[in-house]
């Protein structure tokens, strides 16, 4: 414990602050009416859900990380537009992706499909702004069609849930963030 703590301190000493934008699935907020918490930066009022709580702790363990949270893809696009290309080092997007196999008709789950489309649209919009920040998707469903659509829209990687130290380290290392 002492060794890991001093290693983290040493890492913090030689590295700038890492800024991560966590994009949540707005349906989580729709399913939890009346649940509120002030975010780290006091930007808006939103529910702090499991992924955010766990992501905060994982990123805290990395050390030297500031976490911003966007409640949905549209807010993520707005934040990226306001902050500019090089503000965020990483964008993590939480996706409750719809289950879609080859035999299901998308119109059967129109709401889920439209959420998925909005997620992909947000990624496209961020890329269309010329923002090169790595975008990584998180989801508990990893159907190839869903992953491909996300990558085709401009995402750089996809991580199946649950998020843990090993997966986060792999992402941060892959994109040269640590």
């Amino acid at each position, binding site marked *: *414990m002492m060794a*890991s*703590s001093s290693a983290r301190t040493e890492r913090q000493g030689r590295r700038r602050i890492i800024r991560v934008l966590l994009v949540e699935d707005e349906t*989580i907020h729709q*399913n*939890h009416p009346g649940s509120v918490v002030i975010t780290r930066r006091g930007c808006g009022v939103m529910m702090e*859900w*499991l*992924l955010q*709580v*766990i992501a905060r*702790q*994982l990123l*805290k*363990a990395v050390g030297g990380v500031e976490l911003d949270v966007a409640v949905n893809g549209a807010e993520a696009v707005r934040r990226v537009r306001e902050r500019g290309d090089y503000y965020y080092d990483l964008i993590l997007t939480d996706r*409750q992706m719809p*289950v879609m196999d080859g035999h299901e008709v998308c119109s*059967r*789950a129109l709401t*889920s499909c439209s959420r998925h489309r909005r997620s992909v649209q947000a990624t496209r919009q961020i890329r269309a702004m010329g923002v090169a920040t790595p975008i990584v998707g998180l*989801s*508990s*469903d990893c159907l190839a069609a869903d992953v491909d659509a996300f990558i085709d829209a401009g995402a750089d990687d996809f991580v199946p*849930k*649950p*998020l*843990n*130290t090993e997966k986060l380290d792999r992402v941060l290392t892959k994109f040269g963030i640590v």
Partner: protein
Amino acid sequence: MAAAALREQLNAHIASMYASGMVDEQFQQLQMLQDDGSSPGFVAEVVTLFCDDADRIITELSKLLEQPTVDFDKVDAYVHQLKGSSASVGAQKVKFTCMQFRQLCQDKNRDG
């Protein structure tokens, strides 16, 4: 002394949860994130959040399954949510049950 005894009891209980497959390595991840000493209530916070939400979801599922015509898409959406959060906290048995539940939704099998 009392604290030590309680700690021992807690550790034994957690060990039995691992042994029975109730929790998996993700729960161990959460314990490790707490063990660096800076967030002593982290695991309790996460488990409480999960239990509160699971309780809500199960209530909604009960209502949906009591309907004469079950909306399996809505049931599946709730179970999908529970599966994701159970995986995030390492509640392995809940996660596996959700996976079976989702298959039953796919098959439109209310009795299952």
